[in-house]
């Protein structure tokens, strides 16, 4: 069956140990997590997880259902890239001497619209945000010049393109059931 790249957006209560429970759902079904981001959401007390993976749609459905089954998980949904706004960021530490020797290096940085945030005689720090492909091509070009000392890329973050907010609706609906 066809596998696709899915982004899962998951909301949970801010309790200890939930990340463990969520990642265990993937491990048990032999799906690798490609990237993961966890942070507080816009709703107080609610945490948001952005997780990406390659799998079939059936598996994406099963994973989100099994995650949502955890008592303290509020919602879990999966999306393809056309359903969400996505972003990643990276930091690249470059060798200043290499950059000084090779003018091509700073041309690559400019060409990719990346920002130089720190420059000193030993190294320069470049930051770039965008989609995975943009970030990886920047890294690969710089790396081919032998200029990269360190590279780090963040997990994907995403918000939905939908005009309705499912979490808010869910919470509203549930609050009506509170006795």
């Amino acid at each position, binding site marked *: 069956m066809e596998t696709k790249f899915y982004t899962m957006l998951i909301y*949970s*209560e801010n309790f200890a*140990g939930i990340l*463990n*429970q969520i990642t*265990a759902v993937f491990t*048990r079904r032999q799906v690798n997590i490609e990237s993961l981001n966890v942070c507080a959401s816009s709703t107080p007390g609610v945490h948001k997880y952005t997780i990406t993976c390659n799998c079939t749609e*059936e598996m994406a*459905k*099963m994973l989100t*259902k*099994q995650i*949502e*089954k955890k*008592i*303290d*998980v*509020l919602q879990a949904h999966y999306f393809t890239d056309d359903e969400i706004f996505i972003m990643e960021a990276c930091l690249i530490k470059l060798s200043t001497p290499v950059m000084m020797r090779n003018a091509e290096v700073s041309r690559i940085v400019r060409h990719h619209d990346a920002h130089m945030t720190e420059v000193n005689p030993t190294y320069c720090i470049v930051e770039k945000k965008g989609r995975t492909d943009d970030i990886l091509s920047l890294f690969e070009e710089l790396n081919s010049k032998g200029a990269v000392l360190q590279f780090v890329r963040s997990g994907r973050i995403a918000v939905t393109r939908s005009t309705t907010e499912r979490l808010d609706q869910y*919470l509203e609906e*549930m*609050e009506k*059931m*509170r*006795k």
Partner: protein
Amino acid sequence: MKQLITGAEALMRSLEAEGVDVLFGYPGGAIMPTYDALYDHRERLHHILVRHEQGAVHAAQGYARVSGRVGVAIATSGPGAMNTVTGIADAMIDSTPLVVICGQVDAAVMGTDAFQEVDVIGVAQPITKWAYQIRRPQDVAWAVSRAFYIARSGRPGPVVLDFAKNAQTGLVDYEPAHVDFIRSYRPVPVPSDDVIRQAADMINHSQRPLVLVGQGVELGEAQAELQQFLELADLPAACTLLGLSALPSAHRLNMGMLGMHGNLAPNVMTNQCDLLIAVGMRFDDRVTGNVQTYARQAKIIHFDIDPSEINKNISVDLAVVGNCKQTLARVTALLHEARHDEWISAFRPLWDKENERVIRPATQPAEGPLLMGEVVSRVSEATNHQAVLVTDVGQNQMFGCRYFRYSQPRSVVTSGGCGTMGFGLPAAIGATFGAPERTVCLFVGDGGLQMTLQEFGTIMEQHSPVKIILLNNNFLGNVRQWQQMFFHRRYSFTPMLNPDYERIASAYGIPSQTVTERSQLDEAIRRMLATPGPYLLQCGVKEEDNVMPMIPLGASVDEMMLEFKD
């Protein structure tokens, strides 16, 4: 004025507030403050001292399964908690409501590899519905109430409370808590009228319907709703292993047991029906056989309370997600009265065939050694089919479940999904507390009995009226059967050198008898049932007997083997 009490005392009051009257447990270092508080509550909270923590959880499971109430087990930290793990996993896969309370080291030393410290939450999370560490006495009332609410609501399951020693000894201004709402948890979804109407339409238009009855019917207390549903539309039904007593065996629409060692007719007819209606069951691989060839000709409706079960193993045409007590009644209200005489009579020849070739030879042999099937069948008859059946795992379980008959709900206690050997004896002890007015018959093999044999001590102390029927074939019989059928009779470590069980029983003051002759069987069963309290009836049965019929691993439900010849 504030009245401060310890967290341990708060636990006692919280347990009493939840209506707990029996707990199964074993004390130890990190749970001692709780046991100290229990000493003052021992009149209301009847504590059963088991002989191993695994026994505590299985006993709590047996209690929960027959009573429908939450079973409670207590253990200490580290090894005590780890010994509960098998039972917790078993309860998770069989949807049994449990609250397991484990001691834990003081919060101040957590993470330092303190004496008897184990990361219980880390171990328990994947095998529980909820696992929570109580680190402060102020959290006791809330955590206990939440634990019971989660354990018993929706699809039931086990909850672990990991109770730090400082939370047990610390003082709290106790206020009872009552959790009956968790905003991230919707225990009972309610399907729309449209879904109910679609289900009714599909059933009304079906010519060859077949209902699969699972444990969900028992858990939802929907036995009466099920019967009305079946009877109105004349729907033949078959039960899963855990659903066997949800519909009386003698009901005219009960077509028998599903699955690998179930009955021929319902398995074969699964692949001939035009509509399969699954109620509170999860299409376990032991029920479906090969999923690629499972009921491909049929439309499928799945009634279940757990949305994650829908389309998990088998893709269905319609999901009715909710409590079957309500959903069955709502659908029944829209059903037309119908008759499916021709379809139902088509089950008959298959039954006759199985009866002739398997059931009669297994339950009414004229000669040869004693058979497991005939022992089960004679015990069931002698109890007028009113008893609770508890089994261990293996051939004793399959023969037990096949040949026992059920007339009352909640009459089967067996380890289904997990297949835990050693489950039987402690679960039977628990069942005697959960249903004290009923006869509890345990069928157990010589392998499984030895796995939790220490619970003879609990039986002795409590004088638990467990009727232990030991089907002794001097083999790990089920594995031996597979070795015979699929491993060229290479009996790798399945012959079992057995002790003298009657002498063991006698050491624990349990009356016993051994039977090897058919002519003595009925009298021995009569004596066992007439003896008050526990009894061990050891039956020396045929050594190389096979549970048949069988759907071999990977075969289709309609490829059931009636007999095996090597």
